[in-house]
């Protein structure tokens, strides 16, 4: 997202999605849910060509209030999403990659190919670090960055800034 403000379309999409999810929690049988989901979609569709933004915003506000009044007390949350059962369950197993440097040489000898490649990657990181920092300093506006998104690499043959922590990020399910 470019800025911190949501467009009207984005707000409507979010309202639609969360109202469908709560509807799914209320109507557990799939055919009943399908019926009420189609009814809800028809209600969204009859106002979708509204050109007057004031009226559209009033409709959105009414929709949000209706959602709040009819929400499910315990909606279905996916296990991996915030509030779910498996959220951050494997976070403790996500070990940072610098621990690999602290392995004993006998342990490192068990994976010689990997560790030799790792030395080359680390050299590459050393070389590109200054350029990454220079690019970030040039592109960040004064007063701090506005979003968490990092800019891409601008020049040919250059690596994107802070690529190392993305490339060596832990797996979603370690072990």
């Amino acid at each position, binding site marked *: *997202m470019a800025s911190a403000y949501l467009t009207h*379309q*984005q707000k*409507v*999409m*979010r309202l*639609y*999605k969360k109202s*469908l*999810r709560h509807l799914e929690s209320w109507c557990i049988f799939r055919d009943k849910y399908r019926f009420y989901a189609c009814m809800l*979609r028809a209600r*969204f*569709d009859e106002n*979708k060509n509204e050109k007057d933004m004031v009226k559209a915003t009033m409709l959105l506000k009414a929709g949000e209030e209706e959602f709040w009044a009819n929400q499910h007390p315990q909606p279905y*949350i*996916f*296990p*991996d*999403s915030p509030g779910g059962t498996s959220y951050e369950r494997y976070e403790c197993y996500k070990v940072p990659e610098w621990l690999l440097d602290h392995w004993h040489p006998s342990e490192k000898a068990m994976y010689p190919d990997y560790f030799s490649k790792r030395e080359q990657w680390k050299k590459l990181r050393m070389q590109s670090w200054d350029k990454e920092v220079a690019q970030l300093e040039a592109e960040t506006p004064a007063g701090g960055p506005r979003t968490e998104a990092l800019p891409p690499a601008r020049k040919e043959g250059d690596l994107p800034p802070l690529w190392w922590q993305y490339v060596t990020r832990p*797996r*979603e*399910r370690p072990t």
Partner: protein
Amino acid sequence: MAARVLQQCVRSLARPSLGLCPVNLALRAAVAPAVTVHRPFSFAADSRRTRWLGQSRISSVEVWCRQYGDLPPLTLETIKDRVMYVLKLYDKINPEKIQATSHFMKDLGLDSLDQVEIIMAMEDEFGFEIPDAEAEKLMTPEEIVQYIADKKDVYE
């Protein structure tokens, strides 16, 4: 005395399977003849367990490893197949016209609310939530496959 009862149980299990599955001969020889009462409990239990394993599987290899419950591992092909299958089931999409690179809004003429429904179907299919900020950017099946592969660490 308990061991004698166990031996009788093992023998009764052994009888129907003696011809059917190739259990290793040492085990069969150990179990079949009438043995003394002082057979250790654990050995009888082991022979019974391997006998059941031998009957249930087709191959003759005895597998002692544990089997945990988990989904089969994802590959890029299976993700793509599942995404295309779900998209073909959607009633606003023509199943013949959909390609991996067809844009939902430009090529297939879908609405933004339709795209929300498609993303919700993907979430239901793969079992994890796609946040709104990233969901509104996924406009082709190819992007969806790449996003899921990125999240699930498939051939990263």
